[in-house]
């Protein structure tokens, strides 16, 4: 799989468009999901993914083949998402307080309320939301996340811990992280 990816990237470095299309097919789905999970807006997610792939193509020569391509790619995606979101800060949607109260009142003792996942995710700090998405949506290890976000692994662990605790608390379970 990695060898195949390496060959593909070598071809892209030579300027091969078909290879770039293959790379797009391989990464488009989860990059789109990731951008959508962060922005909650399909149109924004599309713009971010489009810009990410354009940046990847234009900067492919600066990609160091000894590094993980996936980490390099997601680094660009996350940076692009942050840049885009910053630009849109003024339009950012705030959570209606009654909406929040509604879902907090719906908690039962046993089950988690994943119907309100986005609402709960919205309450997380951006840094915490991103690590949750990279881990649970993209299946990244803590080490992968550290590489993408250029953080220490312990910082990633700490953010994941806090984010899960907060999410569990908001989604109806006891925040019993240990």
């Amino acid at each position, binding site marked *: 799989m990695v060898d195949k990816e390496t060959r593909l990237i070598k071809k892209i*470095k*030579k*300027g*091969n*468009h078909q290879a770039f*299309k293959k790379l*797009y097919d391989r990464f*488009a*789905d989860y990059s*789109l*999901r*990731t951008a*959508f*999970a962060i922005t909650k807006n*399909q149109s924004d*997610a*599309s713009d971010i*993914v*489009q810009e990410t*792939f*354009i940046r990847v*193509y*234009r900067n492919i*020569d600066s990609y160091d083949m000894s590094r993980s391509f996936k980490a390099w790619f997601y680094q660009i995606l996350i940076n692009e998402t942050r840049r885009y979101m910053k630009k849109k800060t003024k339009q950012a949607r705030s959570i209606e307080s009654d909406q929040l109260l509604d879902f907090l009142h719906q908690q039962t003792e046993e089950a*988690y309320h*994943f119907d309100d*996942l*986005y609402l709960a995710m919205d309450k997380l700090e951006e840094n915490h939301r991103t690590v*949750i*998405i990279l881990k*649970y*949506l993209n299946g990244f290890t803590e080490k992968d996340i550290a590489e993408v976000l250029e953080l220490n692994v312990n910082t990633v662990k700490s953010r994941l811990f806090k984010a*899960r605790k907060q*999410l*569990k608390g908001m989604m109806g*379970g006891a925040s*019993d*992280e240990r």
Partner: protein
Amino acid sequence: MKDNNLFDKQLEAELKRKTQLDMDVKQAIWKSIEDELFHSITEHDKNRRGVWVAGISLAAVMLILLFGVMTETGQAMIQNLKDLFIEEKQEQIEMEGQQEELDTHLETNEELRYVIYLDDDRYKMDKGGEADRIELKEELPDSYPDVYMEIRREENTTTEEVVADIKETLNNEEMEIVEETRTKNPIEAELIRGRGSKYPEWDTPIYQYYVTDSMNGQVFVIKQAYFLEAAEGHGARFHYMLESFEIVK
């Protein structure tokens, strides 16, 4: 612990479920990327050419302008292929154990439909003969054997036929065939290496041929010519340049 696992699984499943998007979106994004990266210059050129041609009709200055139109059209065709690739690239290569930065420049041949990145500090491309030839910018004294890399396309033939012809040529030139193999590096091809009978001398000529797989009766033949002492220098540089060789369908 069990509760944590359940939460993790639910969170993963729910994130995946909630982020499922229409496949059409993916296609639409690709279309935009393609337009931005690969078509924007072409469209611009087309528009520019349209305006220019209109101008010519209006002026109606026949002969010189007609020549001008032909030249512009020819250039536009070559630009087409050029627009598909980055114009300049910097490569990191290893020469005699040392890392070296190499500035390369895109060379295209619209008719033969191929591209290659040329180390234009040391070499130049000579087109228009039976084959395109990458030659030294600074010629060597006459006492030195030839140094060049030649690219040509053979039509209505097969790889086997071309390989047989090359072997016959090498025999006629009294070159010893020292290697005949299938290779993937620097390109996927049949490799035939011939060496001058006067071996080992500093100036023993070496001919290295790469013959690509036949596609619609067409075969590309790349011949590298250098000499023993230059194997680590020109031989290695030809190798790196050939890595960038692409046939464009």
